């Protein structure tokens, strides 16, 4: 069934901003910066999505989550298209998303050299354990003051 009143693209963006990232649910898909476009092609809603990492298993889940969330709002005629270029970069992360990551204990992307500080005690005395972590987008770091290991959302 096609919704009788076509929701505005602003409304769609607000709905998309309620869908949590499947692997880091403290941020939304809009925060993550993977939604690159929302538009209507007559009665069909077209959502353009870019993958974070080539092999990230969350990519397919993200597409299913978008379809499920919008069909709940009555948008049935929907197409999710993938766009590779411009390729996803951590610069696409929203300010709201960065703050949410920090509060959750994941250090948000800072520079290629590493995080600004420990997300827990805020010490700048931190060291890298490994450039690879529990998901493709994260690296493993450790705080040398509070001694806690933490995830760093690495820059790409």
């Amino acid at each position: 069934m096609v919704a009788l009143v076509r929701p505005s693209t602003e409304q769609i963006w607000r709905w998309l901003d309620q869908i949590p990232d499947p692997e880091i649910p403290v941020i939304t898909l809009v925060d993550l910066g993977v939604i690159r476009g929302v538009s209507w092609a007559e009665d069909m809603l077209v959502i353009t999505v870019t993958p974070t990492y080539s092999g990230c298993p969350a990519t397919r889940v993200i597409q299913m989550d978008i379809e499920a969330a919008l069909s709940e709002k009555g948008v049935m005629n929907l197409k999710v298209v993938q766009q590779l270029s411009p390729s996803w970069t951590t610069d696409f992360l929203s300010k709201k998303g960065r703050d949410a990551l920090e509060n959750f204990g994941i250090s948000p992307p800072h520079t290629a050299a590493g995080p600004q500080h420990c997300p827990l005690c805020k010490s700048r005395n931190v060291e890298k354990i490994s450039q690879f972590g529990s998901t493709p987008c994260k690296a493993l770091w450790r705080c040398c003051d509070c001694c806690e290991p933490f995830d760093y959302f690495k820059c790409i």
Partner: protein
Amino acid sequence: MTQREALFEFLQHLGDNTLILSHRVSEWCGHAPVIEEDIALANTALDLIGQAQMWLGLAAEIEGAGRDADALTYHRDSWDFRNLLLVERPNGDFGKTLMRQFLFDAWQALMLEKLARSEHKQIAAIAGKAIKEVAYHLERSGDTVIGLGDGTEESHARMQAALDDLWPYCGEMFNLDERYNALILANILPRMDDLRARWLSKVTDIFDDATLVIPTDNFAHSGGKSGRHTEHLGHLLCEMQVLQRSYPGAKW
């Protein structure tokens, strides 16, 4: 060979390199010496399989015969694969796996840098995406080669043996392939003239820091790009393809 056939060949070469290396690296999952390395290897394999999906997906699209990335992966036999012989080499020990990774990463990073400037938009987009991931692979494999090469007597000896063993498989990366000339003329593929020199300069820097010596014999095996593989690929495919061979078209 038409331009389309040449492009299909070349995209299979790119896709098969990452597919076969991904499978090899994934064999380490749960077996690496420490958990951080296990995670790093699994992440590397994941990036490579993602890249393989994109390259082989595009290859199938260019071929236009109704196949997709899965069909190319699971329903071709070894003579249809176009990967470098280097990536089908068995893993050996951890050091040898990382040596193979470094030799490949150093080549792939340069190749992707060139392909990101291709006039073929899809090729440029895939390369532009993959290059960011490969930068992390190269940083890690290079650091590990230095750490183990300039490490203990035991680790140094193993890394030198790994380099001696794998070096004859590197020349194939730079074999000029006449089949691709039409693609270079069409600006789909960039010119590769300086690839070998730039690669050699990168690996030489790392091997100097790693106190490893590049073999003087420049004999190079070849054949992978045209489908003449070692026995190792057949064994790998047996494992990788068994489910789709037994139950063709099975869906998850």
